[in-house]
């Protein structure tokens, strides 16, 4: 069974992981296993200590890898599937209602992740003309009983 071994620095929640190929080997399943949890023994390879990711074409899956050294020239790979990366083409058409996004933002929704400075900024904008108090204009009203 073909096995491609990689090193990745990407986090688990990254779909398109950055990975560098370390070796392409063949290996045998250690025992009966489910496809999402696979254990294999492979021959020792030079960069085994950097290996943390793998792809098994036969299973159409990427795996997170834990490496165990065993006796002789064998290395045991304990692998757990990475469905997020493995099946992106399969689930990318799945419908979702998004809560946060980098690409499709609703600018009218408040963001509780944004902190504010403690002192607000005050902007004054004068409008139109002012009242002009004056004693020379017709500014007084005298109300008189009379005709």
């Amino acid at each position, binding site marked *: 069974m073909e096995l491609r071994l990689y090193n990745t620095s990407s986090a688990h929640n990254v779909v398109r992981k950055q990975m560098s190929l370390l070796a392409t080997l063949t290996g045998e399943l250690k025992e009966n296993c489910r496809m999402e949890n696979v254990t294999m023994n492979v021959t020792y390879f030079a960069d085994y200590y950097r290996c943390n990711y793998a792809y098994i074409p036969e299973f159409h899956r990427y795996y997170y890898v834990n490496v165990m050294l065993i006796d002789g020239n064998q290395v045991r790979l304990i692998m757990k599937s990475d469905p997020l990366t493995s099946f992106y083409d399969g689930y990318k058409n799945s419908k979702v*209602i998004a809560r946060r996004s980098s690409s499709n933002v609703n600018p009218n*929704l408040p963001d509780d992740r944004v902190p504010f400075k403690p002192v607000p900024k005050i902007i004054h904008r004068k409008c139109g003309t002012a009242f002009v108090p004056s004693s020379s204009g017709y500014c007084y009203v005298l109300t008189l009983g009379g005709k």
Partner: protein
Amino acid sequence: MAIIYEKEYNGQVIKINDHFVADPDETYTNAARTAYTIHAEGAAQGTNTYWQQPWTFLMPDSWIVQIEGSGISPRGNFTKALYFSVNDFTEEPRDTLLLAIAGNNFYNQLATQQRNLYLPDNNMWSAAYSSDLQATFSTNLPIFEDKQTAEAYCNETSETVRKNMIMQSAVNYKNSEEEPDTVDLEINNYGVLQIWTAEGQQDAHSTTLIYRCFKIKKTAGEITFYKIPGIDGDSLKYGIKYSNDFEAYYIGYSEDGGNTYTQVDQLPYNFIYRKRENELGRFYASPIDVELDSSNTGIPTWDSEEDADDYLDGNKDITEATNWPTISKNYPITNGTEEGESATEFGETYIRSVFSQLYMLSSGGLSEISNGLFDVSVNGIWEKIQKGIEMYGTDPMQCVQGLTYYPFDLSSIFTNYADQQYVYFGGYQLQMQNTAKKILFPQGYKDLGTMTIKRSFNDWRDFEPYTKLFVYLPYVGVQQLSLARYYGKTVTVRYYVDIRTAVCMVVLIANGIMLDYFMGQMGVQMPITLTDFARYSANQINTIMQGATSALSAVNPFCGSIAKIGLASASSLYASEQADIKENGSWAKLASHTHDGSKNAIAATVAGEVGAMGLAGGLTAMKTTFELSQNGINGYNKTKGSATSMLNCYLPQYITFMFEIMESDESEYLNELAGKPTNMSGRIGDFSGYLECDDVMLICPIATDAERQEIINLVRAGIYL
């Protein structure tokens, strides 16, 4: 073609038909645009002349002018432009709006005709004239608002950049590469030609890109979709229908999946199609969304062609469309009434008190009234006492109802007034040198200014509690306004004044609709102090009587007794008849009343003589007493009303809008690492970067249940695409 610009002057209209299409990046040379056309249609009358072929004028039934640039006989290189011009002609009809040509180095030999022409250059005139110019033009020349700009454009030959900048200010400018800012309809999900020979097996050649991507921006009429029957399963086929009056500013389709669009007069197809997944057959699969909800901006869809026809004929309302719940957000909220918003109709007051009058006064007029009422000179006071009955029983205070000061010229608000050189205290007319403006109807308002309220961030921070809007209103104070109600509106601030109570009401109005109103105290009420002349004059009478009696007693006790009798009668007479009190005449009159000559002529003679003898001393004493009592007149003053605060006058007199904005301290990496809020519905593949979801309908048949659940958990917690 649509009218894109109109210029009206004195009832005459020039309409610009279609855009002058230009590329601002084009390098203009002197040879550029030497050929041009101007096409005009309009009502016209009169004869037509022309100077040079191939200018063509078809008059008068249909005014069509075709001008070829080559017909101008240019000499050398030149650039041309048009501009609006108003000329005052010496012949009728005068004062006409023209579309004139500016050019550099024209060969100007066109005939001159002083009519209201439409295409003159500095020294040349073309032919047709019209007394009722209603012309529609289309041209490939830029048209400018004024001659200066047109000439600047023509003369700017060395700097292409500068020339292009000027060109872009043309009223008919349009960049040829420009696409509409918004479109009414956009189907932008391109598809591929797919040939499915068996379920799950797609033919290897079925990769041809198809071009059912299009954009439409309509200017008139309607466009709609209807479902074409006979399509199985999840496949959909929608026909496109247009109303008879449909016109589009822009129709474009794409052959490269929406990267570039070609503008066309009409779409090369009349339906769109979406195939069902794994459907067998041959499909030009334009993957339209089932409800056309994300790719259009409000186009209704119908279950049948008949429904679509009914809609276009006006027999069906858009709210009956099958996708109305989806597209309704594109239509204005009708409040359930399906009626537009009504403009505020402000009330009017016809309240007019005929029993009291309102006088607008300057400080000079007010001082004049005050001085008049405090005039206690001998002549003045007697005059007023004489008029006492007319003047509320000699107490003017009885007819004074109030005095109020306002911080502006009231005659600018209360324009319905009468200028008078007097005011009435009751029935007493007090003459004035200054003018008193008697308010006939106390109705009016003052618009102090307008303010357009715009958003600062164009996002959620524009609203409370992150941004607050206050307005300081003189004589009202600071009031907080609801931002959602004010954004995008130009607000007029209007002051109403209740002239009787000195209360003001400020109304904030936008688009004729009242948004808010606030009450305040504007007028400064002032106390008024006047003399109670009733008491004062009564006191004066008593003083006079006592003084005269004392004087007569001092001369002769006998005569004094007679004088007392006479004075008593005189006093009674005064009270009952308001007799004029004159130094001699009154006493003579008094004598004639007291001693009837027919009964006792001697007594009358004696009394008259004795009275005359006592009068000299009595008057001397009376005068002294009166002068003394003058000093005590303040004891008869009365004050009405009290002062309200005038401190408002010291506060700012400008209306001031105040924005209180919380400044965000957003991380530079926030969007990249954690995204921003959204409520968008879509497919995972529609997003990029960070994505965090509330709800996931996961379709992933290959994954195991555990793996599907893991994907769901990760998508909910946040993933990076």
